[in-house]
């Protein structure tokens, strides 16, 4: 049952089509599995792909708004670095920011009108956040399937949520295709190990 009744606000960020919807859905379901009240919502532009997308997941004993306030998010997991920077102001002081080591140039950059910001990790660390860069794609490729990258990131995020492993496993079993379940369970474990490197937060 409930290990920690404080609850968490989590924000997932990335580029449309990267798979944010699936990992935020798994997170919301893991929270419901522990008997928390849960709300979740995606915010993105037009229905097409390739734009900036975030998904809020909030769980606690009682949740009202599906959208978190700025400065109240406990953990931001961004599947793309620039998107992590774009949404970082939602994270509370000293909160955790996990960045997938992936850079995708937005279309205006292809027109060479703007540049991809440099030193995103340093910038965010200088703001007092707990930042970790995760090389999920190369790790997943080393495992034999680059598509498992998001599950590695999910594992890294999961260990900061206070939700027990049994709930995550149950939810993955219920929601993932059995053919890729074993791979994803391994990827999840691998992600969890990474998180030990991040300082524990208050």
């Amino acid at each position: 049952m409930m290990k920690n009744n404080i609850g968490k606000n989590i924000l997932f960020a990335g580029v449309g089509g990267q798979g944010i919807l699936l990992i935020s859905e798994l997170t919301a379901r893991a929270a419901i599995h522990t008997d928390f009240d849960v709300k979740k919502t995606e915010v993105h532009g037009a229905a097409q792909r390739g734009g900036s997308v975030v998904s809020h997941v909030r769980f606690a004993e009682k949740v009202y708004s599906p959208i978190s306030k700025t400065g109240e998010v406990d953990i931001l997991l961004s599947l793309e670095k620039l998107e992590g920077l774009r949404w970082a102001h939602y994270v509370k002081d000293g909160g955790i920011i996990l960045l997938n080591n992936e850079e995708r140039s937005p279309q205006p950059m292809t027109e060479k009108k703007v540049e991809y910001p440099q030193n995103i990790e340093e910038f965010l660390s200088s703001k007092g956040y707990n930042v970790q860069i995760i090389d999920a794609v190369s790790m997943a490729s080393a495992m034999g399937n680059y598509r498992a990258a998001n599950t590695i990131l999910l594992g890294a995020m999961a260990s900061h949520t206070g939700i027990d492993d049994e709930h995550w496993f149950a939810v993955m079993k219920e929601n993932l295709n059995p053919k890729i379940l074993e791979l994803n369970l391994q990827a999840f474990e691998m992600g969890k190990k990474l998180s030990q490197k991040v300082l524990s937060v208050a």
Partner: protein
Amino acid sequence: MNSKQLLSGNEAIARGAWEAGIHVACGYPGTPSTEIIENLARYDDIDVEWSTNEKVAFDVAYGASLAGARSLVSMKHVGVNVALDSLMVTPFSGVHGGFVVITADDPGMHSSQNEQDNRFFAKFAKIPMLEPSDSQEAKEFVKIAFDISEQFDVPVFLRTTTRTSHSKSVVEFSEAKRTPPQKYKHDPQKYVVPIWGKRRRQNIEMRLKKMEEFAETFPENKIEWNSKKIGVITSGICYQYAKEVFPDASFLKLGMIFPLPKKMLEWFCDGVEKIYVVEELEPFLEEQLRLLGVKNPFGSLNLSGKDVFTNMFELSPDIVQHAFSGNGEKKSFDNEIAIPPRPPVMCPGCPHSGVYFVLHKLKTVVTGDIGCYTLGALPPFNALDTTLCMGAGIGNAFGMEKVHRATMGKKLVAVIGDSTFLHSGIAPLIDIVFNKGITTVVLMDNSTTGMTGHQQHPGMGKTVRLENTYAINYEQLISAIGVKHIRVVDPYDLEATETAMKEALALNEPAVVISRRACVLLEEEKAKTHYPYEVLGELCEECDLCLKIGCPAIDGSQAVPFISKERCIGCDLCAKLCNFDAIRMIEN
């Protein structure tokens, strides 16, 4: 099955409609309403259809109600504009089986061409409107809406916003109440409105009075007494935002926002020092409250609403907090570090890119309407001059032609998607032929309703449940309308597309070019083997011509463009543009 489920508002509405025992559900896809019909289609005991447009959907569902069945019609906010002609008459004729109209509004215009507050339609048509604030309520309110519809012999609006439609929260299921439809009753004095309309007119006012009384004791209009310093009057998702910001305030949460419970409002306002009306978009509740002449303990109404809130876009807990406390939102870091925007883009290999590349090259004036192809307005194509609403582009083009026929006639193109063409593109095309226009129409047939997530339509040969059905033959249809010049091209074949366009534009008669290639996101297309391309650095002259196809798989931010192997689908368009043979399929 676990009794507690995490459902979106739309999934919950579908469940609620099923629990209410509906027999027929109709709709036309439109964000944020689309998933209601998609989820209803999973229940075998309901007759569910994607209709050709919202007015058709409305008329079919209403027909089912007249026949004695509970029925539902679902659409996005602008869909109600399309169905309005029918909607405005139904309060006169009333219902037989319960009839619920879902309007999914989109404050913030996340995927809409305008922002409109459809609460005004409830007042306009004098029919009740319920507004849920989360998924559990969404499910319950559908059932309540059917009861009210039958009790008062009236169509009932259920209004959601993007945030209630698309956010997920916990829902508990109940049993379904399934009863057979009632018998059909021949009743022309009720349903043949023009002839007996005057008598029906009085019914509407009498019914409204009764519904106002009903609102006073309606259990979903709820008062939560807490501190008497602040009293919040609100509904829908704004209730959730305000609860977050004012946990200690008293609340009057309106489950029904039209008609309003006057006595209840008076009683509530009388009990609190200061009133906050928290509502998105227009001052709908605030205006009605002022009109009702409600007062505070000290006489005049001590109320804050749209004086502190904007009437534009979505609210959020941040905005609600800021409006009343002045505590600002935490700002993003873009004043310290440049954060480039990331607008949505067409998909790698999108068939529309070929068409837009050609139109841009031919420097045509292009009128369009609603679909993925609206992105043709952005760089690198800059190929779209107008986008107003479903089906508008063809009529707009013809209007332009009337003014500048000699010059523009040779350069005027209306583009329209296949789903949109069937929704409302046929009538304006008939108009062009009938009134002797010469405008060229490009029918961008990607064999699906792309923008809303690939719903079935009458050109696809599949119903909402993927059963086989007749697939419209566009060439025959367009020819029957009276267009003589019809050409079909593959938009991946840039040369053929250009030739067909030039040929059509040179004519002194209406012409239709059908650009035919399936959307790359359709499962059948994704399942095909893709051979990605690469740029050979030693051959590349860094001319950037390949970037003109606007493919997001090509990163052009460096001198030599780089193609992402994972994202390229091997459409060959960029390679066709390169004059130096520097783009090739990766050898397997």
